[in-house]
């Protein structure tokens, strides 16, 4: 152990941040959990809306609205993560060998990352508008008519079926594919050319080179990308709020349902329960990942 005189100044320099993070991250999380365990009554009828304690949790988890929102979140997450990973990987593969105008394509693919979800949501609300028929349809439906493919018209996220949330993943895929591309592109560029050359001399086909030489080395990047996309999906709010409106039932996910509980239903406690569950879901994914990367980093001796 070093002498306190050596390390104390360091601790002092970070102490403002430690205090702020302690209060605003951990203190507020604690307070939110505390709120979620309260008893609450309807202000008008005085009927108990939340019985208090863990029953608040079983009540929300059991409610049809919440389960509907969870199902939507599952559909959204699967399509969003799958679509973004596939698109991003394809873009990276197309670009990784270096082509003319590579910089242009990279910039174009990445540009949606600079745009806010709210701004993107406004355009995509127009693109995904549900009206059909030549005189009514705008957005993609009208484009399908113009392209002579009217049978492709559909109501997108507001369609009346269990998988309509898949349409909400389209704008999210649009926004984040370029990011995944950038990650994979950096990964490809980090692999030395000798390895490919060696595999080629051994008679490996292009596909085999990707499959057995390149892809295995990209798996840490793929894991990071999956974690980042997964946790973005869990808390996705802006985009859905912007496209479907504030209190859409059809497009509800836990993050937007929390807004509805808080402001439309005036149920603070229920909203706090919802937020705590959301935090738990994210933590279950992220904490093992943080521990894992922390350990690998230490093993690498940094």
């Amino acid at each position, binding site marked *: 152990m070093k002498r306190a005189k050596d390390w104390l100044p360091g601790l002092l320099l970070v102490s403002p*941040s430690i205090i702020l*993070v302690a209060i605003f991250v951990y203190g507020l999380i604690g307070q939110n959990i505390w709120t979620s365990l309260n008893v609450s009554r309807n202000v008008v009828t005085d009927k108990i809306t939340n019985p208090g304690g863990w029953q608040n949790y079983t009540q929300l988890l059991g409610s049809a609205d919440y389960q509907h929102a969870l199902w939507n979140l599952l559909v959204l997450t699967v399509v969003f993560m799958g679509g973004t990973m596939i698109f991003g990987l394809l873009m990276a593969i197309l670009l990784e060998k270096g082509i003319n105008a590579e910089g242009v394509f990279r910039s174009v693919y990445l540009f949606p990352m600079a745009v806010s979800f709210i701004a993107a949501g406004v355009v*995509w609300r127009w693109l995904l508008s549900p009206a059909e028929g030549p005189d009514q*349809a705008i957005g993609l439906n009208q484009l399908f008519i113009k392209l002579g493919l009217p049978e492709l018209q559909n109501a997108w996220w507001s369609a009346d079926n269990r998988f309509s949330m898949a349409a909400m993943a389209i704008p999210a895929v649009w926004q984040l594919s370029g990011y995944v591309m950038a990650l994979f592109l950096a990964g490809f560029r980090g692999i030395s*050319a000798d390895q490919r050359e060696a595999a080629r001399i051994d008679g490996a086909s292009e596909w085999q080179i990707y499959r057995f030489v390149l892809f295995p080395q990209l798996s840490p990047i793929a894991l990071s990308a999956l974690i980042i996309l997964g946790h973005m999906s869990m808390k996705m709010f802006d985009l859905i*709020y912007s496209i479907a409106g504030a209190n859409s039932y059809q497009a509800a996910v836990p993050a937007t349902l929390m807004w509805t509980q808080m402001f439309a239903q005036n149920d603070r406690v229920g909203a706090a329960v919802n937020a705590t569950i959301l935090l738990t879901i994210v933590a279950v994914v992220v904490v093992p990942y943080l521990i894992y990367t922390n350990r690998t980093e230490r093993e690498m001796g*940094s």
Partner: protein
Amino acid sequence: MTTTTDTAPPVPAPPKPRRTTGHAPGSKGSVRARTMRWVFLLLFGLFILLPLYVLIVTSLKVSSDVSASTAWSLPSQLSAQGWIDAWDQLAPPLGRSLILGVSVAVLSSILGAMNGFVFARWRFPGDTTVFTLFLFGMFIPYQAVMIPLQAMLLTVEGQAAWFQGIVKLIAVHTIFGIPICTLIFRNYYATALPKELLEAATVDGAGMLRTFRSIVLPISAPAFVVTMIWQFTSAWNDFLFALFLTTRQNGPVTYALNELAGGQNPDYPSIMAGVLLASLPTLVVYILLGRYFIGGLMSGSVK
């Protein structure tokens, strides 16, 4: 990417294209394969640029020219009315967002530099635990703090009336930006700041603050650019905090854009012009400083 320093260093920004990894363009691979590649590249490009076409074309139409059947056509006559209307509504919030973005960028970067320096080179007992606890703060869904945060800040506003709107958001974004900025600076100093240099400074009798000021800060510019761009962009693009903590009168541009777009009878030219106006600053940053922008993304696009 978050905590991994092994996959790609956050700063300086991304590896330049290296032709050595593959074969030179056109040297191998059949004409058919190359054609296929271009077809796919262009298809992806089309998918990405489609909304941009809609935005630009619609923003230049007159309101009466916006009908279902002409939705995808070029404007029959060019009009700046949409842009003028959007500007009238968005100018004040655009100014507020500018103040927000710049203040947050500066404040977060200063805190990040201090923290990153300590976590990388002036370690204290328990620092890895503290750092991990910081990192988790980067991943939390902000919904999990929003209800008590809103109540707490309203109480403060009750005591000090100036603490409202943009001031609130500056404080909140600076605080919740601490983890990412700390991470970026820590990773930067871990590679860019030689231990020997610091040891020499210590031998010469320089204290921590003096070392920080005269040795560390002068080499920190690349990391500052990355965190400032990152924080500016996330503060500019944020909607969740804006929605919970500000109002129509004192909110940032994302709030105002949502109001503009949410009316009963949407006026598409001004809405689409509004989207472009509200996205212009971050797009300009992206176009001018793209390399650094990507550097920030690589080190942890987590918000």
